[in-house]
């Protein structure tokens, strides 16, 4: 994903337009992935006021499914579908066994529960799989490029760009057009009132967790496709990125999460481009410094939510 690597070697005069296009594709690709990560976190937070730090482990579960089935004879697309399915199932299972019992408890209790679940799953992976990262068989697709004129585009980047836009579109349709989708948005506004109109609390919450797991699963495909390996801590960067993007965008708004994700992605790719080689290692530090600045001026995030804290 490094711009310099993608450009044709030896081409002395790099077209400005080409640079810009390259930048836009990379920014939208990484930003789209970040947006999906943030959405997966915010869709649960909006309803339960729970920052689910075990979200990263859903990426891990999907990753290990890729690892175990990827080497076999099953076509990759089916393996990918099963992996996403595993992330959804795990998310639903965690909701049922870990979060439902503490739903009435304070936000702090739920937060600590999510840390516990996260640590438990990481340690299970260390114990039963391996403490070290293992190489995952990914389709050559992720490392291949194709050329349009003098523009060299990574297929993996293009795929994550298209898939993230597609999923955002589908999710928007679901949230606006279906009763369950409208109920999800309503529950983020005012959970008690949502129950008072007859929406079943368990159904709405389970749906939110299912969507969260689905997004984590899709993110895992591309994230692990980029990394080429999966380990017990593979989910820690995605969950951190998701959290930061969500905070920047505004924790209480789905639109905010998407904006935060794209912003963070653009920032990361942009810094890659403008930072001198010697400072590239500190790219993340620059990203977080800018995030801090944003939060200094807009502590509530870029997009303010409409949720009422007052309950019936």
């Amino acid at each position, binding site marked *: 994903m490094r711009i310099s690597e993608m450009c044709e070697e030896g081409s002395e005069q790099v077209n400005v337009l080409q640079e810009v296009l390259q930048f836009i594709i990379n920014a939208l690709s990484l930003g789209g992935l970040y947006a999906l990560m943030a959405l997966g976190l915010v869709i649960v937070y909006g309803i339960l006021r729970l920052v689910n730090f075990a979200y990263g482990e859903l990426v891990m579960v999907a990753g290990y499914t890729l690892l175990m089935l990827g080497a076999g004879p099953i076509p990759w697309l089916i393996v990918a579908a099963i992996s996403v399915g595993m992330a959804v199932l795990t998310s639903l299972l965690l909701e049922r066994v870990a979060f439902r019992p503490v739903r009435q408890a304070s936000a702090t209790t739920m937060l600590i529960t999510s840390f516990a679940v996260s640590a438990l799953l990481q340690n299970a992976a260390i114990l039963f799989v391996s403490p070290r990262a293992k190489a995952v068989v990914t389709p050559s697709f992720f490392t291949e490029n194709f050329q349009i004129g003098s523009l060299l585009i990574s297929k993996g980047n293009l795929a994550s760009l298209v898939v993230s836009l597609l999923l955002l579109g589908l999710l928007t349709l679901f949230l606006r057009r279906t*009763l369950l989708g*409208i*109920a999800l*948005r*309503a529950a*983020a*506004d*005012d959970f*008690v*009132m*949502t*129950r*008072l*109109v*007859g*929406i*079943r*609390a368990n159904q709405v919450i389970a749906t939110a967790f299912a969507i969260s797991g689905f997004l984590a699963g899709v993110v895992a495909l591309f994230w692990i496709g980029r990394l080429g390996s999966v380990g017990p801590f593979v989910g820690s960067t995605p969950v951190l990125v998701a959290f930061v993007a969500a905070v920047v965008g505004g924790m209480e708004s789905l639109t905010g999460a998407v904006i935060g994700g794209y912003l963070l992605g653009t920032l990361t790719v942009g810094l890659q481009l403008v930072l001198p080689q010697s400072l590239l290692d500190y790219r993340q530090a620059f990203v977080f410094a800018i995030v801090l600045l944003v939060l200094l001026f807009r502590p509530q995030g870029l997009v303010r*939510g*409409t949720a*009422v804290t*007052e309950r*019936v």
Partner: protein
Amino acid sequence: MLSVKDLYAGYGAIIALRGVSLYVKAGELVALVGANGAGKSTLMATVAGVLRPFRGQIIFEGRSLLGLSPEEIVRRGIALVPEGRHIFPSLTVAENLRLGAAIRGDPAAVERDIEEMCARFPILGKRFHQPGGTLSGGEQQQLAIARALMSRPRLLMMDEPSLGLSPILVDEVFAMISQLHASGVTVLLVEQNVERTLDIADRVYLLNTGKVEFEGTPEQLREQVDIVGAYLGDVRRGI
């Protein structure tokens, strides 16, 4: 239709209801009046299933509501218009109305009802695709009532529907309530505006610190105004 017997309820260690008994017959408009903290809202929240009572019975159409969740109680035919309206601010008026009918499985009839609501409350038709949060207080109140009606409740509970509204809107809200009542909806109404409430109610309960202090017709309450006036605190001027 609804009968509440010896109900004790509250929040944690705070007991807001101390042995309240009351009933609402089908087709009646029953009002609960009383000062702040008398337990009116607590009673409604308990009937709606938001609060679990410590003791007592709640029977609706012959079946107990105890232990049921809010989403099951609305399916039994009770809708609540909560204090403070609680419309969904980020949802459009249309979506608010559609969610009001969440328990119904007849999409065509739901569409007809939405049209009917827009005819009854023209402002909702005008603001149909606007987020609920952009509506004024009076408009939100109309939306909250319309949303509750969308579930086709047999018992409509309204908690302070005129609170915070301008005098003209208060007139409108009361006209709306008597109109609903005339059309056959059973109503349990909590109001601070005692005078207006007595004009439209069939029967009245006066609550004071969690107990029923008086029950009877509005005329009876008016006759005994000297006795009960002392309990009304803030709303004394209204009588």
